[in-house]
């Protein structure tokens, strides 16, 4: 029900951001993500950023999966 994919923020102008998903660029509405910053990753769903992807959390998830921690 919820196709959302990770995208990197390239530019921010008010509530809109230019994001990059594997080289594909699109505009995204970032009003739902507080303190979004250029260089951070967000989840894009239907043209809106719905949440930030915690880089540390992602790494921790992978480490968990790899059973390093």
């Amino acid at each position, binding site marked *: 029900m919820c196709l959302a994919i990770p995208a990197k923020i390239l530019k921010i102008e008010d509530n809109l951001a230019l994001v990059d998903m594997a080289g*594909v660029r699109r505009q995204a509405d970032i009003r739902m993500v507080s303190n979004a910053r250029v260089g951070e990753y967000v989840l894009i769903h239907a043209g809106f950023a719905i949440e930030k992807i915690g880089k540390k959390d992602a790494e921790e998830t992978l480490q968990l999966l790899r059973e390093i921690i």
Partner: protein
Amino acid sequence: MQPITNMVEKFKDDAKKILLAHGSGGKLTHQLIKSFVKKFRNLPLAKLDDSAVLKFKGKLAFTTDSYVVDPIYFPGGDIGKLAVNGTVNDLAMVGARPLYLSAAAIIEEGFPLVDLERIVDSMNRAARVAGVKIVAGDTKVVGKGGADKIFINTSGIGLIDSGIDISSKNARIGDRIILSGTIGDHGIAILSARERFDFRTKLKSDSQPLNRIVSQILKVSKKVHTLRDPTRGGLATSLNEIAEQSGVGIDIEQEKIPVKEEVKGVCEMLGFDPLYIANEGKLVAFVPERDCRKILNVMRKNRYGRDAQIIGTVVSRHKGRVLVKTSVGGERVLDMLTGEQLPRIC
């Protein structure tokens, strides 16, 4: 009574567009034809007879295709380039050397002449790159709304050398399947040009002629069983058609299929699957295990085959079906395309 200057402007304006009169067979038609003949520059065409007269010896391949792509210009090409390469490739897929093409256009009244010239130039260029001659043609003009800008049909003739028997029915158990390069480029390039989903990429259509790479393959091995260029419906549909027509099963490895990152990105975003997206310059080859390494090597030496990969095998199990080993190690059925790929979100 309109001032003369206005009438002259209107005339000039009209002169830049295709009029119904261009299709009526009169003076304007002749002007148009003469300009094409000048561009395509070959003997049979220059004779301006009702038919091109050509001499052959051997087995002929003959094919036809119509092109109605929208938009007519897109990153990496246009409808003209598509029309030439598409027919060249259809001939190449049965192992024929493409020689002659016909080109017929149905043009909507009001279509700008400068666009027509651009497309004709593009066809000319594509024909030269592919090494084929456009020896017959036709143009018709229909009233506004009777066609969407321009429709093009190309038919083509090629010669098949002896000892070559390539067909969708010939895939054999044990054959290895080689894909010549990345999939999904064309379909996604078209989508990006349609602006409906408002995304930007550097992707270009992969429309290119495959006859030379096929010749090179056939030089190192005449034992190629099947060739197919996966256009509408994508690689998945082509593989299914071959599995059905040859009465064999096919096993594919997802990991081995080359896909450009940007194609992956758009597909993830819109919920598409690259396996179902049209390509215009790629082929799959079904070849005996014994010859597959040398065929792969010769493909990779060709600029249109640099990303070639062995992606699967023909098997005796699940005849008529295609199975995929997924990137994570699971297995699933790869069906034909059903309906249209709708971008999904929910």
